């Protein structure tokens, strides 16, 4: 793995470890769906999740643009056993985070903003 890839993986793992009560997994993905780094449950296919999360962000950008409601900041899906949060890191890279159902969503979103800044500095 490249130094950049190692840094991404280390940053993701630290984020999950620091927020273990809320966060169950995370992935950094290019806007065309290529996985750049991830730490997810073993029964999840990270490549597939990467493509889906990037598509979810693509749809979000289009909805926001067509409805003329400003700039997309995040997309959230709530399921009966957790959440998926997708946040842009840069115009070319996004962060996907899975959260427990009982997660403190407000706190997790603040923590997500911090890790987005850290990941953005990796480039």
């Amino acid at each position, binding site marked *: 793995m490249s130094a950049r890839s190692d840094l991404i993986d280390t940053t993701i793992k630290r984020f999950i470890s620091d927020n273990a009560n809320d966060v169950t997994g995370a992935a950094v993905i290019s806007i065309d*769906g*290529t996985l*750049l780094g991830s730490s997810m449950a073993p029964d999840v296919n990270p490549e597939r999740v990467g*493509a889906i999360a*990037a598509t979810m*962000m*693509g*749809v979000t950008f289009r909805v926001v643009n067509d409805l003329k409601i400003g700039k997309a900041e995040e997309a959230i899906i709530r399921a009966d056993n957790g959440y998926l949060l997708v946040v842009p890191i840069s115009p070319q890279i996004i962060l996907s985070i899975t959260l427990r159902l009982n997660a403190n969503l407000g706190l997790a979103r603040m923590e997500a903003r911090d890790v987005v800044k850290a990941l953005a500095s990796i480039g």
Partner: protein
Amino acid sequence: MATKTTARPTLGDYMSLICFHYLRQGTEDIAGRAAIVAAGRNRGSDLCESLGLNGATSDGAVMTEKLYDALGEAGTRLCLVDSVTQQPDGSYEVHIHEGACTAGVQSAVPYCAFTMGVFVGAISAMTNTRMLGREQTCEAMNGKECVYLIEPV
């Protein structure tokens, strides 16, 4: 043809680029580029698996030959593969022309989302290395060919 099927006894395996472009552009307009690139990656990966090429080579010349046969005039006619060349840093430079994505298309930005995805998937599969693709030159931007840089993540 390399992928001859009996699914359509009258019409055979091929359809018009017109329909392909509606499918591709319509999907991209709604869902963005990722869905198209992902479809291409899956195609490239599955193609290599079907040809027994998973983890089989990192040699650009071998890739050129295999992908020319599979995707070119005697294959599925996605594009004509001119060369796949391994660079010293482990990346690959791919040169193609007559790509299905760009046929008859004028664009201000690179337009080979599906075709490039196929090469990302195929080269990832052949080298057992996760790859990321960037299009450097595109026929849709009046280039004479399409050139992709496919590099390890």
